[in-house]
């Protein structure tokens, strides 16, 4: 169980797991040796709404940084999710085809999307945000979202 940074904005509480890195767009990346497990952040899943379908690129797909790794359809929006790392898809969360709600229920755990064999993780990790940096960005985005309403 990771530790979390947590903030409440209006009536919504958002968590950021402290054991992984983040893209500015709200995708987390958890290093597991040379492999990187990825998924949607808690803020991203709450802002996007209940997930209807999640389609992840199949195993073997080669990805450049930012290439679409998954498309997610929610009750509000359709999201084309860019990969936070370059590499090759080596594992896909098959459970999402039957239960995509796992992305909403457990975004940092059972709702993971894919595992990518990173081309050069050491170089790419420096482009990602650490938990505190993402927490700051996310909080600003959440407050802007609430003030827009």
């Amino acid at each position, binding site marked *: 169980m990771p530790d979390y940074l947590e903030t409440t904005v209006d009536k919504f509480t958002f968590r950021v797991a402290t054991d992984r890195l983040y893209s500015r767009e709200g995708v987390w990346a958890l290093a597991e040796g040379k492999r990187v497990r990825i998924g949607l952040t808690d803020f991203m899943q709450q802002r996007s*709404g*209940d997930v*209807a*379908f999640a389609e992840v690129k199949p195993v073997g797909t080669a990805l450049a940084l930012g290439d679409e790794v998954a498309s997610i*359809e929610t*009750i509000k929006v359709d999201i084309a999710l860019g990969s936070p790392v370059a590499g090759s898809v080596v594992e896909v969360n098959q459970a999402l085809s039957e239960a*995509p709600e796992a992305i*909403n229920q457990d975004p940092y755990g059972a709702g993971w999307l894919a595992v990518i064999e990173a081309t050069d993780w050491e170089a790419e990790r420096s482009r990602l945000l650490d938990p505190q940096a993402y927490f700051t960005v996310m909080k600003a985005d959440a407050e802007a979202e609430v003030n827009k309403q």
Partner: protein
Amino acid sequence: MTNRKRVAIVPCSGIGKTYGTVSREAAYEVTEDMRPAETQLVPLSLLVLGDEAARAAVAETPAVTIDGCKLACATKMVKDSGGTVAQDFAVLDVYRRYKPFKPQGIAELNEGGQKLAHVLAEEIAGVVDTLGASSEGDQNA
């Protein structure tokens, strides 16, 4: 002729939300076209306001609720009003089974949304029939 109680159909009141509109369109189709004699539409807003007639409607008859999102307001309000939920439908769950019927639009649903509302209405009508059959069985017992 039997004197069956009419099943209460309680849809989501999510005004301005596509899935709320699907839930209401399905409820209208069941109560106005498919099973008008066996069902009655109970507006969620009246339950929220504590309207006595609405509360009585769900307290005296089984209810079928249709929720537009995971907050499940329709289901919760029926239970909080002393009613019994015979079957709860979530529009999202139905859509997952009918992926080609992608709902869009709010005031007016697109074709996919209309088809989704229709298949949902058919499922609700099936539940109403089942409830009616079991009710008749009880009366004949």
